């Protein structure tokens, strides 16, 4: 089959070439099924250095900076648009003329602060690489803590596919170190762990003395854990070992970090998979029998777009991420799907787009008493995981703690900000209170002193699933005339208590490290991604972790869920909605490994069930 054109006939049509679509395509292709992937965005450039040059030339080195579409883009004109972090600034996030996502900006709403890519390989192009498993309790929030819902599967049901995902991605870790909070392993990681950084070691040294009061973690045995990562510690899949480019987000210059182009290449090699680019799925077509009969799509280039074309298969898999998939489903409303495809006819069976979640991230930063020499190694090599579960989950969102190796790059855009401060007598970093202008060795010494002591902690907080946090369709359209995603989003008190607990924990960790005055600043009064927290009388800022979850959630019955545990739609049996949209809760682990495990399991189900 020619990889580049829509041919056929196809057993499976997949929308999206991200990790979900790629893994399923590869498995189906290996099982000799004929597969088409429709990818909205651009193909890999002929020379991957194109991405690196784009990154090097970018003034704002945001996660989206290497990847098309070119930034800034006009959301009304861009053909396969996506949000980017610059669209979260005041005056932009709530302005549909400037923001791709049309965000609700009333008093009950906060910005949804995460972004994604629409390009070959999807958002996992710019992931950090963190490949944590969820802990068993994450699947049982309702049974254990009376909160939210249980997943329709348990950790042990997914465990074999966690192992398979770790091999597909190439995850580096030592299993013996990863058996906290009930995690068990039936197989080994394919590569040994990535070595800890000096920052990690300095944080680890403070763990024995750590006491965090008042957030339900009183008796915790604190420790720093190595972070399993989709990053080579040995040559793997013909890719090199990590050289510590400290650039995982947004792009690894040497592909030591896994990205889905690896899996897409495997899929193409089966000879059974076609991938076409610049093809935006615009409608899911439903027959009178309720089965999906085709996908309508628009092919575009710089100047023009095709009239809607159609392709069909025996089964359809929507792998477009937890915002774009519900968008497509809701755009497909019609006579045979009056509430949109994927929604049932009963009122409690319309959850497509609902229960939108993220990991709201609390960021704290400080100067270590002595040099820790950040800006080296992968962006993160260790974290604190022992605090991810406990009885406190009855009261507040749990969190994991990511230890950053990149100085103050994330909180203040360093080393640029501090360098500019000391050259130009400014104080955006808060390290140049006297607003001195330095030069020569004096400048170099000051910068060495400050930069070599910088580090940061990121707390990924479990967000409560709320029905009214949702993706729907905006009136505003994109460059293909398709309605853009509308977002309604807020943080519940449960979630806010998690963020507040993160703040207390950060301060306690810094104290245990001998740091009495952390560098974390309060958000400015016009910062949109912040909320007032009564107990401290101050605002707390949150960031998006890039973990978009919940909008076609799985359940054990049709009531209040969109798919079963195989990610198969309750309402159209030849339709699968795959990826983090299927998660009923967001837990505290980065989602990619769980996405991969669920999708490998879905692929096995499809093959074994002989649907195709």
């Amino acid at each position, binding site marked *: 089959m020619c990889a580049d054109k829509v041919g056929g006939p196809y057993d499976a049509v997949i929308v999206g070439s991200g990790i979900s679509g790629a893994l399923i395509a590869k498995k189906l292709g290996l099982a000799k099924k004929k597969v088409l992937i429709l990818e909205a965005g651009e193909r890999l450039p002929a020379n991957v250095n194109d991405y*690196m*040059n784009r*990154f*090097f*030339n*970018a*003034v*704002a*080195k945001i996660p989206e900076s290497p990847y098309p579409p070119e930034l800034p883009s006009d959301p009304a004109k861009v053909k396969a648009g996506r949000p980017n972090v*610059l669209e979260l600034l005041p005056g932009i996030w709530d302005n549909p003329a400037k923001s791709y996502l049309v965000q609700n900006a009333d008093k009950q709403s906060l910005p949804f602060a995460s972004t994604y890519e629409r390009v070959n390989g999807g958002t996992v192009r710019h992931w950090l690489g963190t490949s944590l498993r969820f802990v068993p309790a994450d699947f049982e929030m309702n049974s254990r803590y009376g909160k939210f819902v249980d997943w329709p599967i348990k950790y042990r049901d997914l465990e074999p596919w966690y192992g398979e995902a770790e091999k597909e991605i190439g995850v580096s870790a030592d299993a013996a170190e990863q058996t906290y909070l009930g995690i068990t392993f039936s197989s080994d990681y394919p590569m040994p762990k990535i*070595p*800890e*950084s*000096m920052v990690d*070691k300095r944080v680890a040294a403070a763990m024995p003395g750590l006491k965090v009061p008042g957030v339900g973690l009183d008796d915790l045995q604190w420790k720093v854990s190595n972070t399993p990562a989709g990053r080579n*510690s040995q040559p793997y899949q013909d890719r090199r*070992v*990590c*050289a*510590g*480019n*400290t*650039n995982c987000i947004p*792009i690894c*210059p040497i592909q030591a970090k896994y990205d889905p182009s690896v899996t897409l290449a495997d899929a193409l090699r089966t000879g059974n998979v076609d991938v076409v680019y610049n093809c935006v799925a615009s409608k899911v077509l439903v027959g009178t029998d309720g089965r999906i009969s085709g996908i309508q799509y628009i092919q575009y280039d710089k100047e023009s777009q095709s009239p809607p074309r159609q392709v069909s298969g025996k089964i359809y898999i929507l792998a477009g991420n937890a915002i774009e998939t519900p968008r497509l489903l809701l755009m497909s409303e019609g006579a045979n799907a009056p509430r949109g495809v994927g929604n049932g006819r009963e009122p409690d069976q319309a959850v497509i787009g609902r229960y939108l979640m993220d990991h709201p991230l609390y960021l704290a930063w400080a100067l270590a008493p002595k*040099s820790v*020499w*950040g*800006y*080296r*190694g*992968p962006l993160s*090599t260790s974290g604190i995981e022992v605090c991810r579960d406990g009885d406190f989950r009855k009261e507040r969102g749990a969190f994991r703690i990511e230890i950053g*190796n*990149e*100085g103050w*790059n994330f909180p203040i855009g360093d*080393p*640029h900000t501090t*360098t*500019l401060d000391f*050259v*130009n*007598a*400014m104080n*955006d970093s808060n390290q140049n209170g006297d607003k001195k*202008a330095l*030069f*020569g*060795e*004096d*400048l*170099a*010494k000051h*910068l*060495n*002193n400050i*930069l*070599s002591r910088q580090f940061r902690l990121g707390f990924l907080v479990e967000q409560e699933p709320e029905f009214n946090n949702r993706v729907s369709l905006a009136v505003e359209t994109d460059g293909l005339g398709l309605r853009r995603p509308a977002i309604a989003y807020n943080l519940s008190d449960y979630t806010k208590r998690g963020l507040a607990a993160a703040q207390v924990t950060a301060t306690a960790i810094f104290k245990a490290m001998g740091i009495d005055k952390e560098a974390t600043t309060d958000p400015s009064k016009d910062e949109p991604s912040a909320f007032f927290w009564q107990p401290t009388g101050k605002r707390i800022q949150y960031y998006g972790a890039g973990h978009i979850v919940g909008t076609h959630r799985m359940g054990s019955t049709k009531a209040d869920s969109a798919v079963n545990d195989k990610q198969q739609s309750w309402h159209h049996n030849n339709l699968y909605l795959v990826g983090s949209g299927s998660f009923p809760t967001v837990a505290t682990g980065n989602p990619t490994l769980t996405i991969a495990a669920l999708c490998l399991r879905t692929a096995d189900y499809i093959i074994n069930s002989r649907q195709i």
Partner: protein
Amino acid sequence: MTDFTRRKAIAVAMGTMAGAATAVSLPGAAAAADSDLAIFVKLSAALTGIDALKLAPDLDQKKAPGTDVIGIKHAYFAVASKDPAFPDLMKIAREADPNFAAAAEIITGKATDDIKFLGRSIILAWYLGAWYPPKVLQKGTRPGLTDVTVISPTAYTQGWTWRVAQAHPMGYSELRFGHWGDRPTSTLELTGKKLEEP
């Protein structure tokens, strides 16, 4: 007279020995432009605090011809020389030669604003590989995204702030697996100056 002849000879030698890296035709007489480059580098060393031979390894043409394979000095010289205050800045440097520390004091201290802020732009070019125009710096506020330009992908990879931090530009590591678990190279080795506190 002798002085002028010797300086001219050195300048010509630099032009012919350094090969492709210096084969850039600069406005004005070739001999004068080459010596301008050396002065620019030595002034930059005084302004940035980085050893001149680290900024431009081939500065001493007799000892190390052709060793500045990247030659980023050309990019910074080219962008700085477009600024109207550049000739005055260079005049201060040339008059102070060989006491470039004194030149740096003047440029960052009692010189006119045009020269002072150009001096800062030059420091930032070496440190960050980006051009922060003097007029933007003069505002004293956080520059907007379109106020600053990355001089080139290569310039980004040659930024000195990262080496002063004993690290490397994010996205450009020439080091090996696991190095981040160990103490980094000393600032003396990286910058030619001992910057760490005892």
